């Protein structure tokens, strides 16, 4: 035992880390995790391309159906669905990792440090945003050699990458809210079928104008339809104000809703402790 009864305690109170630096460091950690666990991210990169390949080879003549938008190829039509599908599925990975942090105690390690509470969430979401941007660019880059044409040009591609990034933020935030509420990675991963149903009952694979009955009604009510159509307008219609508003507006709205939900869930979780 050190016998000095009034030992000088060094309290590093003057060390200050900015929330920005903390968010940045935690987002790097989140991206490292994605990079080092390719098995968790590859499906969200491969499956959308598989659906595009399947659709393009099987439904190429569907573009002549009444109600189908004027489009050079089914591939151009399918790109938007692939981007949103990839981002939706990819967002599960980051949120599941957040839940795993809660399960295994790493979340507590962050809480017991002078970490800004919002940085814990934003760090994770920044990683999801970077992955969303990468996925969008990846799908475009992979499909270009197969005849993909984007009428809005490089600016449209940039808008799509921005839209993909915001969509990843929105969906990632909603999934993170679930992770914070449940603290269970299984619960987060269990949302996969729900996301798939939302995608299936949307205009991801066919335009809403060609749908009828309950399928058409659900697609009309489904916000994912409008998200996809924003990206699709940029691909097949060109750089119009309406296309940009739809691509960015819906993803921004989704991001705002997601952030609200996830910050509320974070407050609730911290309040429980």
């Amino acid at each position, binding site marked *: 035992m050190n016998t000095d009864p009034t030992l000088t*305690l060094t309290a590093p109170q003057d060390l200050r880390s900015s929330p920005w630096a903390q968010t940045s460091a935690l987002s790097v950690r989140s991206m490292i995790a994605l990079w080092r666990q390719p098995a968790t991210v590859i499906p969200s990169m491969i499956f959308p391309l598989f659906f595009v390949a399947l659709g393009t080879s099987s439904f190429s003549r569907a573009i002549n159906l009444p109600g189908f938008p004027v489009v050079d190829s089914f591939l151009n039509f399918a790109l938007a669905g692939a981007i949103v599908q990839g981002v939706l599925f990819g967002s599960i990975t980051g949120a599941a990792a957040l839940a795993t942090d809660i399960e295994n105690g790493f979340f507590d390690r962050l809480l*017991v440090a*002078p970490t800004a509470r919002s940085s814990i969430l934003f760090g994770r979401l920044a990683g999801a945003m970077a992955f969303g941007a990468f996925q969008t660019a990846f799908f475009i880059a992979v499909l270009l050699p197969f005849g993909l044409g984007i009428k809005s040009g490089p600016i449209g591609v940039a808008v799509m990458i921005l839209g993909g990034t915001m969509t990843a933020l929105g969906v990632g935030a909603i999934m993170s809210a679930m992770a914070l509420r449940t603290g269970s990675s299984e619960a987060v991963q269990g949302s996969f079928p729900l996301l798939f149903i939302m995608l299936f009952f949307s205009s991801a694979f066919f335009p809403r104008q060609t749908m009828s009955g309950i399928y058409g009604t659900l697609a009309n009510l489904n916000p994912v339809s409008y998200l996809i159509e924003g990206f699709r307008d940029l691909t097949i219609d060109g750089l119009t104000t309406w296309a940009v508003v739809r691509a960015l507006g819906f993803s921004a709205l989704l991001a705002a809703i997601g952030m609200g939900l996830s910050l509320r869930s974070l407050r609730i979780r911290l309040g429980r402790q």
Partner: protein
Amino acid sequence: MTTSRVPHPILAENLVRTFGSGDDAVRAVDGVDLQVEAGEIFGFLGPNGAGKSTTVRMLTTLLRPTSGTAKVAGWDVSTEADKVRRSIGVALQDAAIDPLMTGTELLRLQAVLYGLPRNIHATRAGELLERVGLTAAGDRRVGTYSGGMRRRLDLALSLIHEPSVLFLDEPTTGLDPMSRKSLWEEIRRLNDDGTTVLLTTQYLEEADQLADRIAIIDNGRIVSQGSPADLKAEVGSPTLLISVDPTHLAAAREILTHFGEARPTAEGTLGVGLVDGASGVSAVIRRLDEASIPVIHLELNEPSLDDVFAEATGHRLEGAEK
């Protein structure tokens, strides 16, 4: 860095934490008082579920106390939580470390979280890896580390900002004896450098070896507190443990009452605090022999922390190592 002089880096008064509400409410910590001196290693000893970790979680700001007050490094854990966090190092149970990152990466992340100047991140990470003997493994992913290596890295992470108070929640649980001893040495070195350490453990030997003072907790209450030597001295006489054939158990128990107070033991064994110490053993054997009770096993133990625990709670420390 700012400095302050605090004679009691950990102070808790009537600390209570309840989980649930109404009839289902569980009082996990039930009025704990603690006064840890600067520069000491304070052991918090108790079985699983006794309230050790809940107390530590309150002291480290992870849980809000239901009632009562606590100050760590001079700061109130409820109203000055951020200042508490900047003053303490914490290694929680199970060494929660991201297996996908390397030791160096985790240390550098920790340096950012605590706001260390960027130009010293690499040096500090290197120093700490060297300190805990992980220099060679620093660039390996933590997923490849053994349990002992993870614990040592956990300790290094908790030291990134040179905290004055260190909380170690069951730091050696699940470790092999070699790794445990190596961690003990590091904890002693830290304490020699002036760090106040609060360590929870369910290992009697660990508390005995490391702690200057010990608080024994059971069912959320501190039942005994003091230095290991003082606590053992309070027990006084050594414990004689005797195993006899189960058919003779009642008769043997009656005989033993003449030699001292009965002490709690494992089932099937009788225990008595021998008033006459070792010199009383022969008399016990003689009386048992006269009663034709054959002794299967006999053992005389000097007072241990297990005896202290048994005296205070009426039962032995389950799962504890003697």
